[in-house]
């Protein structure tokens, strides 16, 4: 067998699957976004209309939900960075080797604990008679309850390891003599972190942010269970999937567009090549 035939034999089945099922479905989703729903029978008919897109743009609820989701995804990303950088510096530069090993396991372990389990855990923590209010109530602090704040906290809880692990790895790999040079030249710790550490770990932060951003963008289960009345893009898609599939299809292009825009703008920084 020549190499070309061998390659075809290897790729035939996977490509048939991925293109025939997955890419086909994505294309059909795009096509369905232009189809028509009969308002009386709610049967979907093939056709071509831009009405679904007009509805999405014209309906202020859809626009505000898109913006809210975008804001939540950005907030989760920023919060993850704010936790991961001090965590990484502490683990790499302050902790003893033993404590470092323990912390390395501790930050990856929750990744496995189950997505819904973690949402359930946050629900128990922040519910009205829950742990948070009961612990901090005597201090006069009342928790965020089920609100957009809790959604951001929960999504950060879910996706933090995707940011914390690459940031910690990047800080560990920084050559120690950089820190010596910086301090010999008279820089304090804060100045060293700002001017030496942060620029060098930027690729890791960007790599992590792709996960925290795109995973938050597509999520709606957190909003459903800890968000009170908070709606995200996914909530609208999910509530339309049976009643009005073309609207759901059209609206699912919004998160795709956000992710693509994010990836392109990140790519221009040159961080993707170094991932």
């Amino acid at each position, binding site marked *: 067998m020549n190499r070309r035939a061998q390659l075809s034999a*290897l790729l035939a089945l996977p490509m048939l699957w991925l293109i025939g099922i997955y890419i086909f479905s994505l294309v059909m989703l795009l096509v369905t976004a232009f189809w028509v729903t009969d308002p009386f029978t709610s049967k979907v008919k093939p056709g071509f209309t831009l009405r679904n897109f007009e509805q999405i743009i014209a309906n202020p609820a859809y626009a505000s939900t898109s913006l809210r989701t975008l804001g939540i995804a950005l907030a989760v990303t920023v919060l993850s960075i704010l936790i991961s950088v*001090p965590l990484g510096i502490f683990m790499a*530069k302050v902790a003893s080797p033993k404590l470092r090993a323990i*912390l390395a396991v501790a930050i990856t372990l929750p990744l496995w*604990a189950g997505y819904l389990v973690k949402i*359930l*855990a946050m629900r128990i923590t922040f519910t009205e008679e829950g742990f948070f209010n009961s612990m901090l109530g005597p201090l006069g602090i009342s928790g965020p309850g089920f609100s957009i704040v809790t959604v951001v906290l929960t999504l950060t809880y879910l996706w933090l390891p995707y940011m914390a692990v690459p940031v910690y790895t990047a800080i560990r790999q920084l050559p120690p003599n950089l820190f010596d040079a910086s301090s010999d030249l008279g820089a304090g710790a804060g100045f060293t972190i700002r001017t030496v550490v942060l620029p060098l770990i930027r690729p890791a932060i960007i790599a992590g942010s792709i996960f925290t951003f795109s995973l938050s963008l597509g999520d709606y289960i957190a909003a459903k*269970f800890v968000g009170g009345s908070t709606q995200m893009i996914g909530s609208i898609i999910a509530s339309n999937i049976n009643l009005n599939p073309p609207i759901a299809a059209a609206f699912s292009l919004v998160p795709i567009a956000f992710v693509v825009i994010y990836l392109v703008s990140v790519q221009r920084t040159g961080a993707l090549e170094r991932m």
Partner: protein
Amino acid sequence: MLRLSLGAKFTLGTIVAIALAFMYIPLFLVVINSFSAARLSSWPIAEFSTIWWEKAFVSEPIRAALLNSVIVGLGATVIALILGTLVAFALQRYTFFGKQTVNLLVVLPIALPGIVTGVALNNTYNQVLEPIGIEVGYFGMIIAHGTFCIVMVFNNVLARLRRINPSIEEASRDLGATPLQTFRLVTFPQFRSAFVAGAILAFALSFDEVVVTIFTAPPGVDTLPLWIMNQMARPNEASLVNVVATVVILASFIPVWVSQRLARGADERE
């Protein structure tokens, strides 16, 4: 050396402590609430009891949901093992036009938000296949899970193949082994642990998946995450959910433990 003042070290340590508390207290609350006698989760816990554990063990819906999760997970893992290994070999052993595209195709189902994958497959099943008389039913869920699990096997096997010394296979061929013998006796043993690790990750990913499952599960069929979600939506026996969630937390240590052992085994051999 990064010279941090004592105050700075203290601040960093405090942030780490808060982050760890933020990660572990909620999980701890789930575990402790599974032993609460009350129907609803609350804090502090008024009375402890194992009643919900007893109920969970005899619950028929939980058993059915667990069985579904295992069936779907195993089906998805088999699909992912076959397709993921094939692509890994193609990308590692050959150079060809469109290599990057093939790589992207494998990663895409997990890179796009789950809701997009779920809605796209749901749309294909309901608006394209059903009108022409094809009912995917239960298999729709397995197909969906298999699709996004491919990348797990692919990543693990590809990383291992890159480290295999090609001269060992050449030696095997020179000594007269058929290609099949070479694969069975020389190539496969070298990437077996990556293959197993990929399988565990694929199974774990499928076992935990919610959003894609919501859109691809046939009516009336629950996987374990779907069962948990439906119970959370009508929280009259919340403590029962805590029992299942506790078991999931404990079970989640298994893949971590196994993959660490496999990684250690691979390091020792090198």
